[in-house]
């Protein structure tokens, strides 16, 4: 029972949020911000696996997000909607979207994980600055490839994902998107927490601390890197798929280095190697972005400035390698760790 306490608390919060959404107690704008928070939690925590736990410097996370966003959108549009680009809905009617939407997201995650190989494989041979440049290159490759495929809108992108959401709402009218965001964000955090908490996953931290010792003292570093990069990019892909359906419109310009930087800021703000830090900073950062919206482009002066200040005065981030339960031991009740 105690073991499931955190899960029960999380489910209760989810239920509360869903009821609030269902009853429209919050205006549409705040609802969308809350959905972005969930998506950003997935993005920052998955990037933390690489930049925080593994100690690599990946600065192309938005590339994986793009792969997921396009895969999920294309699948859903193609399967469930009739539009000018994709023609009549294929095979099956819109009503199946309720069941198949999460499946398309998982497929999107798989595709993003496959593109993650573009970084994982080079990481066997190189690291540090060189790998950072490779991640940057992958971000550009993804963005430019999409720009050059006119069938999916090229640089203009495409819209219509709202229809997918409408299709689901026509079956049962509940806040589907928020439900799936809560489900996938929760699952991602649990998966990441369990992974880095297992001796197997701690191989990732061993690589950060001393890769040579890891390699020689029995860690199959290539496999561990492969898993870490694919897990990380896979979660980013799912987040991308959700993102596309929240804003209802995607174009390659959304997934540039700018977006990657945003995710990186969240990781460094929250603290490297701290999942609760990533969650906390995703909430703070998303809300802050909204408050800074009136500044328009000036927010892109302010945010990097914030990053500079952070690196100067608190380089370890808000949490810095600790989890919330380390800072507030009382919380251990909710996150019991297994002792052997």
């Amino acid at each position, binding site marked *: 029972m105690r073991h499931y306490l955190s899960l029960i608390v999380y489910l209760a919060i989810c239920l509360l949020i869903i009821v609030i959404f269902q009853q429209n107690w919050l205006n549409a704008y705040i609802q969308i911000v809350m959905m972005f928070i969930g998506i950003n939690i997935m993005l920052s925590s998955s990037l933390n696996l690489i930049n925080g736990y593994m100690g690599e410097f990946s600065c192309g996370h938005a590339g994986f997000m793009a792969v997921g966003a396009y895969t999920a959108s294309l699948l859903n549009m193609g399967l469930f909607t009739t539009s000018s680009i994709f023609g009549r809905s294929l095979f099956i009617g819109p009503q199946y979207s309720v069941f198949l939407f999460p499946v398309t997201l998982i497929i999107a995650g798989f595709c993003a994980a496959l593109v993650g190989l573009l970084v994982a494989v080079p990481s066997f041979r190189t690291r540090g600055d060189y790998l950072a440049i490779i991640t940057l290159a992958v971000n550009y490759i993804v963005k430019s490839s999409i720009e050059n495929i006119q069938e999916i809108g090229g640089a203009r992108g495409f819209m219509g994902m709202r229809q997918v959401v409408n299709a689901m709402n026509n079956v049962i009218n509940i806040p589907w998107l928020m439900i799936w965001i809560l489900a996938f964000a929760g699952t991602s955090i649990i998966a990441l927490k369990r992974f880095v908490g297992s*001796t197997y996953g701690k191989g990732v931290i061993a690589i950060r601390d*001393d890769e040579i010792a890891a390699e020689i003292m029995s860690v199959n570093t290539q496999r561990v890197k492969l898993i870490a990069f694919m897990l990380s990019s896979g979660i980013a892909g799912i987040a991308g798929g959700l993102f596309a359906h929240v804003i209802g419109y995607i174009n390659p310009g959304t997934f540039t280095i700018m977006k990657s930087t945003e995710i990186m800021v969240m990781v460094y703000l929250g603290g490297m190697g701290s999942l609760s830090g990533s969650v906390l900073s995703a909430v703070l950062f998303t809300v802050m972005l909204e408050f800074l919206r009136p500044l328009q482009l000036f927010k892109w002066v302010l945010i990097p400035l914030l990053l500079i200040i952070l690196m100067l005065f608190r380089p370890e981030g808000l949490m810095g390698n600790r989890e919330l339960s380390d800072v507030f031991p009382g919380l251990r009740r909710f996150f019991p760790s297994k002792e*052997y």
Partner: protein
Amino acid sequence: MPLLELKQINHFFGGLQAVHNFNLTIEPGELIGLIGPNGAGKTTIFNLVSGFYKPTQGDILFHEKSIIHLKPHQVTSLGLARTFQNIRMWNSMTVLENLCISQHYRMGYSFMDAIFSTKTYHEHEKAVVKRAMEILESLELSEAAGEYPKNLPYGLQRRVEIGRALTIKPSLLLLDEPAAGMNPSDIDRLIELIQWIREQFHLTIWLIEHQMKVVMSLCERLCVLDFGQIIAEGSPSDIKNNPRVIKAYLGDEEADDDAEN
């Protein structure tokens, strides 16, 4: 049947030949030393044996099977463990975690088991922790289980590093200058420790050492290396009086006998 055989090993770093026609056979149960002046190529030989470098020429047989095409973690999984000249622990994790991670090679579950928290996962995790605790207890390190290695005194860090190597269940243990940087009382305890683990875990030990006290009191056979080449081999007392060895050491400014001790 020899445990380890190095056959005609040559190793180059670019134009520099670090190992020159190196031949050595180690029988099970031996405790053999590798000595030589700084830069002689001793660590390079350990790196070759543990699979970190591939020899430019030659072959290495462990249990009569060639291991030069294996990755380091595969070599380790055959029962060949080592320590490093400069202690290399994973310092952001506790001693216990360090001794668990070194059992990675026989982690009987996949990452999916970890994510889904399956029964297999919990069983193996339990076994891994149990093994680590057993080693810590036998080395009288239980108290340090929750500490971070870098916060421990130097002598204990060495002990922990040897403990980590023992979690591998090695049949051959390579120790690269285990006494480096230790004070005399630490050194005495280290000598005791090495003798004890050798019997307790039925180990064959190959060690590199500059401290003559360690070498003379432990090793049954010595191999002297200079410029990547064996210049003498034999019992410690023979080696002590071998003129070539004395010359090699005296030729190297800081490495004459007095400075070493």
